């Protein structure tokens, strides 16, 4: 027979905790033991550009090459791409209005969007927006190398009222980081590890 008074006053962490009718104890819980390997990378640190001035003096050619590439990146964003000597042939297609058969057309998917990179038309909104900060513009260049949805990340990254909302910005960063990887991956050399 159970002791009802004892049962009712059983303290939360006391010695008189509930016990099953058979007298068998409640099982103890496993503690959480984490396996860690922080010491593997604890000593890793950034490799800082040592003495930049010296480095620039020693390797002016390399520095100027990098700067030229960077300028090209920025110009790529600042100026609409006009290729007078392009071998790509364009055809102007005038859409014909057909009200009776107005079926919304799907946008081309990323895989289908295989125009030459330099011929991708700029979005009007991108050109009319005020100049974005340096980093945004550099990042925009990354987006240009991506697929058709790259303009979405550009807009998220650019200073706009949408930046006030944290979530879209984070999503934009996620997109951006993915794009960085894709872009760098495509540029990486391929000798064996």
């Amino acid at each position, binding site marked *: 027979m159970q002791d009802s008074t004892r049962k009712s006053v059983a303290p*939360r*962490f*006391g*010695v*008189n*905790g509930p*016990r099953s009718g058979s*007298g068998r*104890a*409640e*099982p*103890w*819980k*496993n*503690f*959480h*033991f*984490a*396996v*860690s*390997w922080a*010491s*593997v*990378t*604890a000593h*890793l*640190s*950034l*490799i*800082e*550009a040592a003495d*930049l*001035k010296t480095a*620039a003096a020693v390797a002016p050619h390399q*520095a100027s090459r*990098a*700067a030229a590439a*960077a*300028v090209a*990146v920025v110009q790529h964003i600042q100026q609409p791409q006009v290729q007078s000597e392009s071998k790509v042939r364009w055809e102007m297609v005038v859409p014909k209005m057909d009200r009776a058969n107005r079926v919304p057309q799907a946008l081309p998917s990323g895989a289908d969007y295989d125009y030459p990179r330099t011929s991708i038309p700029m979005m009007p909104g991108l050109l009319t927006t005020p*100049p974005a*900060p*340096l*980093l945004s513009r*550099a*990042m925009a*260049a*990354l987006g240009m190398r991506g697929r058709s949805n790259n303009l979405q990340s550009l807009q998220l990254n650019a200073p706009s009222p949408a930046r006030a909302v944290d979530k879209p910005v984070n999503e934009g*960063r996620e997109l*951006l*980081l993915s794009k*960085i*990887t894709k*872009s*760098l*991956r495509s540029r*990486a*050399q391929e*000798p064996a*590890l």
Partner: protein
Amino acid sequence: MKLDTVLELRSAGRLEEALETLSKSSEFDPQLSSVGAEIEFALGRFEDAALSYAAVTLSDPGNVNLHYDLALCLACCERWDLAAEAFERVLRLDAERADARLGLGSCLLHLNRAEEALVNFNRCGTGPALIGRAVALQTLRRFDEAGRVYETVLAAQPDCEEALSNLIAMSIQRRDFERTEDYSSRLLEIHPQSTVALQGLATAAFGSADHAAAASYCDRILELAPENLEAWHNLRIAMDQCSFSAGHLGGKQ
């Protein structure tokens, strides 16, 4: 001129001002961006630093150090997949980079790709790679091999807390409470405030039905970590068992 200003500000520890100066730049300069990335990293803004490094890396894709720095930033953001890819790019450019291989191995462990991590750690020789190797083996449940690697670590560094903690975890995985007690005692000797050691001792005490000892260890855990719910639960169970045993013995007498 701007570079000088930024470097001076950075040297003076005025990192925010240095970044502000950089943000006013109207042209993309890889050197300035590199410095900016370093400052962002120092401020713990790892995502910003990763983005900055990515931009610089694009302008100088053959610079292995930039790829490495980018990888490190991504790892600090806990973007293990991206970081692993970035470390792989470093290794494509320079297969001898042990630091990149360590970073890659660590990311692969986070991604639960222990086999690949082990391959990388095996190519790193000794040093910090040993712990990585042992963890990879432990994850693959190759406990005997893992134990030997941990012992090698401990032979070189007898007070290696991480090795002892992982050995405690491994002995509990194997239900080897004798070893749990041994490793936990060693860890407690080195770090008297180690809750991992106390948890190990409490587990070993429960394993050998020494409820008085288990209660004592749980009590000590709660002194150090009052939020430890398992310790609260186990203290109650241990004390309950103690009182039950005492009552049982009293009844017999």
